[in-house]
């Protein structure tokens, strides 16, 4: 396996793992039971996807999926900055999921035609799940944006906080194939925003670095939690 594909698999896996972990932090805390279950279901899907990417990457190096998830440090992770941002309130969590799912849908649609067959298969399989995530989060964006004065204000704040991280999706790293995803992504976001009474900000979405291992302070805390067991008890297993 060439090193570009290997790093790309880590990037895809890291995106899914870190967002899956963030969502799982809601377990037992979401506003109502059904939504608690929805978020943890999405976590499970994302962590399942991460496993497939890691297993495939690990095959070529003789490592294991666990080693890739538990024994790398912050600068070795290649996820986008958006997915490591804190959960904040419900509006932040929803908007983060919506931006990411809309991106993941375009991405996996395109990866179904990637030259690598195994990657094609993972994308085609995962796409079915991503459509659920996109619908669920899109509906919540509308509910909050077009809801009460309070929910609308919170959505506005979430948009202000998170918009700047969305540009990184579309700045290809050296190991990434160049895919024209920005336009369809904006189209999708615009359609839902229109129903929600929200507008796509005109400010540039300028933050980036995660794909190259330059992360915000938050990822260290995520890993301290996610990797705790392996750090405290190296080599322990179920």
């Amino acid at each position, binding site marked *: 396996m060439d090193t570009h594909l290997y790093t790309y698999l880590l990037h895809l896996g890291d995106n899914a793992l870190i967002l899956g972990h963030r969502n799982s932090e809601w377990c037992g805390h979401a506003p109502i039971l*059904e*939504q608690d*279950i*929805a978020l943890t*279901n*999405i*976590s*499970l*899907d*994302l*962590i*399942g*996807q991460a*496993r*497939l990417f890691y297993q495939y990457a690990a095959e070529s190096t003789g490592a294991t999926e666990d080693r890739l998830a538990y024994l790398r440090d912050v600068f070795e992770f290649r996820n986008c900055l958006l997915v490591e941002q804190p959960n904040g309130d419900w509006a932040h969590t929803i908007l983060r999921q919506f931006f990411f799912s809309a991106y993941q849908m375009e991405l996996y649609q395109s990866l179904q035609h990637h030259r690598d*067959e*195994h990657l*094609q*298969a*993972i994308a*085609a*399989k*995962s796409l*079915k*799940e991503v*459509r*659920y995530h*996109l*619908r*669920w989060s*899109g*509906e919540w964006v*509308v509910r909050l944006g077009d809801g009460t004065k309070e929910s609308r204000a919170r959505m506005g704040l979430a948009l202000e906080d998170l918009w700047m991280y969305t540009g990184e999706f579309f700045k290809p790293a050296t190991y990434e194939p160049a895919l024209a995803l920005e336009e369809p992504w904006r189209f999708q976001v615009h359609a*839902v925003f229109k*129903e929600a009474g929200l507008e796509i900000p005109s400010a540039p979405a300028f933050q980036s670095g995660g794909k190259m291992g330059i992360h915000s302070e938050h990822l260290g805390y995520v890993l301290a939690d996610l990797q705790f067991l392996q750090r405290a008890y190296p080599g322990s297993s179920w």
Partner: protein
Amino acid sequence: MDLLKGIPDPEVPVLSILDLGIVRDIRLYPPSGVGVIITPTYNGCPALDVIRMTIRMTLEAEGFTPVEIKTTLSPPWTTDWLSEEALEKLKAFGIAPPNPVPAVCHLDLFAPDEGVACPRCGSFHTELVSRFGSTACKALYRCLDCKEPFDYFKSH
């Protein structure tokens, strides 16, 4: 084949792994080897590891060795692979069986999914409570006639 028919899905035990359509191929390697190819329903389904282990234990107990279990992702699993018998079993168990998978899966927000019949009274007068249920493969519905909440096995 008959041995695998006896292995239930850990999350929906009325269905065997054959009913679910997750066993894609079985190959015999004389004198006693066997290979089984399975496919996951949903990527994160925690049942898959248990299923893998149960297949191995079942076949080894019957003297098969070596037992090789492989996972394939393509073509992706769909509820269209559930057997007719499986649909009946689900219904009898109180889970509404999946409708045929629509050719085009739409993304319209708030659009009602599809007509789902209550597994108890058969009424189509039902509503979606939550798109996500107790396992990845189910959604939560409510019957507006007999008032019972029920699981719907999502068409996927």
